[in-house]
């Protein structure tokens, strides 16, 4: 679907790109948005009183409004960051005043990416809190029974991924959010993987915070989003200090700008923010119903074809509970060797620990091969993948 929109394939006609979970390819509309800004609209935002700057400021504001609308949030609740990792670090650096008195447990899951693990490890150490983890079942899903026990009056916050970057599992976050809210714990969603595959409505979810990156949803690198409920963002301190985030400044002190500028110190990634807006337009024009339907079909096909191979272990909860990401290992062949041989066949996959080292240890493997799909992938891509995997097995026989 829409492969012709992605210029990378004009330059690499034989490329089979199966690594969209690491970073998307970009459609020409998004790339054009970047060059259009630099060629036709370039000026700094906020303080200029000349036409170009005013126009850039207006477009930046409109991009924020578009993202707010996309998530069903208010504009003031959308903070531009560099990526999901920075969004989560913003939180671990500022969230302390929001945590309930006497609550000393932070609840994560065993399937978190390092970006939603390490910041909380550091936060827990600094604040003398305990980390707890919702375990995964043998079917690569969260253990919701255990979650019920783990979320209690000691839980200060629950931070979890919407979609596993290793298994493709789509977590029933509504269930976890309900448990957390019943227990008055704060809720944070890492939507880095889910954002390009499904419609997310923060009002409906009623999460406190949600983070994602532009570069995994067909947008440019260098731009990420932190959504936060306005009442929370009002209460916490800025994360970065400097130009653009102030109201008044003396030599001794300063006061902060209103939301959202309070959290956006320094010159922002203006072109990238606008191009993220274009990526959202692009996704919405196709429509998430159509995207989901297409990706489901191709994911199912991939699962079926992989399952037909001998000596393969697939780490996936099944098509009903996942999408677009499949991890596997070929018996007695290291994932990096598989990826190298696939590369010789113009097929790009991810191999290794996928920024989930503790999870790999739990699976008792040094790493996995990971195939991740996007709207431009076809069944022919998968047929070529299977052919190349058979070649791997032939070489290592």
């Amino acid at each position, binding site marked *: 679907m829409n492969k012709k929109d992605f210029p990378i394939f004009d330059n690499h006609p034989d490329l089979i790109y199966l690594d969209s979970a690491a970073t998307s390819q970009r459609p020409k509309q998004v790339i054009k948005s970047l060059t259009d800004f630099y060629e036709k609209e370039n000026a700094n935002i906020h303080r200029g009183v000349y036409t170009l700057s005013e126009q850039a400021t207006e477009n930046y504001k409109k991009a924020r409004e578009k993202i707010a609308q996309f998530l069903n949030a208010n504009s003031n609740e959308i903070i531009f960051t560099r990526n999901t990792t920075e969004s989560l670090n913003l939180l671990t650096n500022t969230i302390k005043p929001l945590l309930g008195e006497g609550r000393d447990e932070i609840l994560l899951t065993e399937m978190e990416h390092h970006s939603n693990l390490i910041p909380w490890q550091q936060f827990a150490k600094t604040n003398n809190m305990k980390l707890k983890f919702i375990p995964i079942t043998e079917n690569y899903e969260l253990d919701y029974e255990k979650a019920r026990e783990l979320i209690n009056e000691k839980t200060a916050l629950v931070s979890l991924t919407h979609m596993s970057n290793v298994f493709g599992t789509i977590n029933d976050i509504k269930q976890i959010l309900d448990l957390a809210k019943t227990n008055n714990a704060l809720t944070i969603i890492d939507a880095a993987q889910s954002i390009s595959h499904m419609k997310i409505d923060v009002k409906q979810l009623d999460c406190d915070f949600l983070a994602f990156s532009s570069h995994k949803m067909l947008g440019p690198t260098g731009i990420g989003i932190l959504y936060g409920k306005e009442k929370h963002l009002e209460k916490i301190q800025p994360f970065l200090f400097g130009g653009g985030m102030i109201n008044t400044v003396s030599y001794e002190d300063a006061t902060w700008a209103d939301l959202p500028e309070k959290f956006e110190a320094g010159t922002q990634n203006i072109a990238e923010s606008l191009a993220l807006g274009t990526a959202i337009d692009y996704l919405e024009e196709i429509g998430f119903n159509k995207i989901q339907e297409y990706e489901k079909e191709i994911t199912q096909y991939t699962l079926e074809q992989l399952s037909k191979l001998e000596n393969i272990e697939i780490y996936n909860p099944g098509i009903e509970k996942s999408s677009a990401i499949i991890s596997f290992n070929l018996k007695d062949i*290291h*994932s*990096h*060797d598989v990826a*190298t*041989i696939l*590369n*010789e066949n113009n097929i790009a996959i991810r*191999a*290794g*620990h996928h920024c989930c*080292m503790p999870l*790999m240890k739990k699976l008792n493997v*040094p*790493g996995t091969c990971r195939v991740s799909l996007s709207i431009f992938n076809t069944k022919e891509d998968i047929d070529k993948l299977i052919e190349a995997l058979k070649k791997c097995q032939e*070489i*290592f026989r």
Partner: protein
Amino acid sequence: MDMYTENILDLYKNPRNKGILENPTHENSRNNPLCGDEITIQLIICNNDIKEVKFSGQGCAISQASSSMLTDKIKNMNVEDIKNLNKEDILELLHIPISPGRLKCALLCLDTLKGALENARN
């Protein structure tokens, strides 16, 4: 030229000097954070010469083959000569084209070995 030559694949399936030494004088473990591979090298050094060497741990074909080749090479070698071994020596041993993304796999054993020389037991 092919990365997965018969020789590399043979060493992957039948590694040389793989195992555990009972009484090593020197020992070191190192992992490659890119792929999660871990290698342990144990040595018995006597009069500044390598008398015995074993490696253990799991890894890809490239890291396993280079570990086999390097441990073969250093038997009876002088510690000072080992300190002078470098990337080019390993690539020469492997004699295959290594892509930049796989260089760490190839060099993990050399890093681990050099660490072991500095890490005497007791």
